[in-house]
């Protein structure tokens, strides 16, 4: 049996997972620093100490995320699309569509039952439809991103946001705050705007059930519920682990495949 790891250096958070014998033995999420190398080293140290192993005890490690090329200790770099697909499929075996709402991008991936990517789309416009959008909006509301989700579930009359542009939406929120709208209604409006944007991406390809949501955005109930409503489908949640870990888990699973295929270092 080999010990494998996955390290996902995202724009906002860096994640790492160690898997031993198809079991997660350690996982960590830290805030990404300005330098991807540093964040990767830091998170790896954390998981290694949690697992009680030395980094050199890892048989194979795959790096992913936008900082994947710059990580020194990985054996291979794989795109986050492939990693998210693998990870999500492992966490929710019935998943055929994965919606990943990351810090700076959003992707929708259709997979087969082995977790192989069949088709994917990513947002290529701007921050709208990404975790950053939610962060910025929460910031304007002076609440945390997770409160944004919780509050919105209490809304009775969500505000309709004209713009999904991160800049204009901020101005709109301020306008609504000044007009003394209920914060829960504003939050619900933000989540609906976000879900709308994501649904557009999802609808550009044939989505298949089950749909599973990963990334930081998965922690926002408001977005998940609104998205399910717009798509007219139920969205499966990941309960076993933090949904932000899907990419790192997928990387570790691919690493494990590599060791089985004999590409041991």
């Amino acid at each position, binding site marked *: 049996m080999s010990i494998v790891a996955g390290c996902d250096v995202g724009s906002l958070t860096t994640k790492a997972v160690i898997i031993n014998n198809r079991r997660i033995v350690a996982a960590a999420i830290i805030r990404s620093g300005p330098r991807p190398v540093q964040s990767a080293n830091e998170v790896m140290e954390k998981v290694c100490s949690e697992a009680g192993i030395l980094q050199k005890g890892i048989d194979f490690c795959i790096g992913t995320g*936008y900082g994947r090329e710059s990580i020194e200790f990985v054996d291979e770099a794989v795109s*986050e*699309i*492939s990693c998210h697909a693998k990870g999500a499929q492992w966490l929710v075996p019935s998943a055929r569509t994965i919606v990943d709402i990351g810090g700076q*991008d959003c992707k929708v991936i259709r997979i*087969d039952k082995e977790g192989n*990517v*069949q*088709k994917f789309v990513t947002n*290529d416009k701007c921050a709208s439809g990404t975790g950053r959008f939610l962060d910025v909006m929460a910031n304007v509301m002076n609440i945390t991103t997770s409160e944004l989700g919780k509050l919105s579930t209490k809304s009775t009359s969500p505000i309709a946001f004209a713009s999904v542009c991160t800049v204009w939406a901020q101005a709109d929120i301020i306008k609504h705050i000044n007009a003394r709208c209920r914060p829960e209604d504003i939050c619900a409006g933000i989540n609906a705007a976000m879900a709308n944007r994501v649904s557009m991406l999802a609808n550009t390809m044939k989505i298949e059930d089950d749909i599973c949501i990963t990334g930081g955005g998965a922690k926002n109930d408001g977005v998940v519920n609104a998205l399910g409503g717009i798509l007219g489908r139920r969205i499966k949640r990941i309960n076993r682990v933090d949904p932000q870990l899907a990419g790192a888990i997928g990387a570790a699973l691919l690493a494990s495949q590599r060791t089985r295929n004999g590409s041991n270092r």
Partner: protein
Amino acid sequence: MKTAFYDAATNIDLDSVRAWKEKGGKVVGYTCSFLPTEVFYAADILPIRLRGVGADSMEIGDAYYGPFACTFPKAVLQLAGSEKYRFLDGVVISNGCDSMRRLDECWRKMSEDISDTLPSFFHYFDVPHKPEGYAVIWYMDQVKKLMDSVEKHFGRSISDENLKTAIRKQNQVRKSLWELERLRAFDPAKISGTEAFASIVASTVMPRDTYAELLLQCIDTVNQKKDNPLGGRKRIFLGGSVCDAVELVALIEKAGAVVVGENVCFGPRNENDLVDEDANPIEALTRTYLSGSACPRMFGWYKARLHTITERIKALKVDGVILQNIRFCDMHGTENGLLERDLEKIGIPSIRIEREYGPLTETGRLKMRVNAFVEQLESKSNHHEAMP
């Protein structure tokens, strides 16, 4: 050789063009593949395709164009405004698309602010949006008008004989370019897409005779190569809007694939992309340039274009298609949507990518998507192999 082509594809200031100028030769820039370059060679003038390579900022482009316009003509304007195109004796603008045809006004107005940026020969070539019928007559008339004004301005005369010679020589280049395409069609490809595409782009900016000789040498060298490092790579076809970015092809190949063909407004579209050498030259040019090169600007001709592209993809044994377009290019952006749908219907995985023209500003994101797409293709074949 590779360096000469790569250099030509990625630079504006070329030794070969400089040598042409030093011998007293004239150079005219043009904007669109609908322009019959033979007309210029027939007048002993060097035609070069205008591009925006090396535009590292956009302050001039943005001063005249609005924000919702394609970065390709903006980059051309930027270079013109920063005197990078000073060596031009003339420019022909045509209405390839709305953003491109407005380069006419933007360039003229810019030259009122920045002196000596407008060549004395500045011609508008009006290409109809239909490839047949009365549009043929219109186009032929445009060619005649172009010839007239070239003759008048440069004091040259363009005889039928000159035109026929130019056609014959350009056909030679076309045949060689198709020869190069054949090398790419081998499985595994005999030449990398990066190298091949650089040669294709270079064909639009280097003096024809110099280029033709180098190209033959290049083909020879490739033919003599014994080893082939391109085996086992996924074969990619690049489609979409105007693209002269050799770096984009290189980025795709760095992801472990090989680019075996393009349909991006540069390079031969098919084997029959030749001008009839026996017919009336203007008629022959019209048939090839207007009727033979379907582009989404010819509204209503999508099916013909899909057919051409599909046939080519099949012949090249393509594993996946990357459809790119420069942001705000609605015609290709939209056509890419249709192509993606129709190619996937026949089992060819495709991906659409919107980008900006110029230095790969979004390299990180672009790279991630290209990598993921190549991984997708690879996992597909692994998967099939694993199937009983």
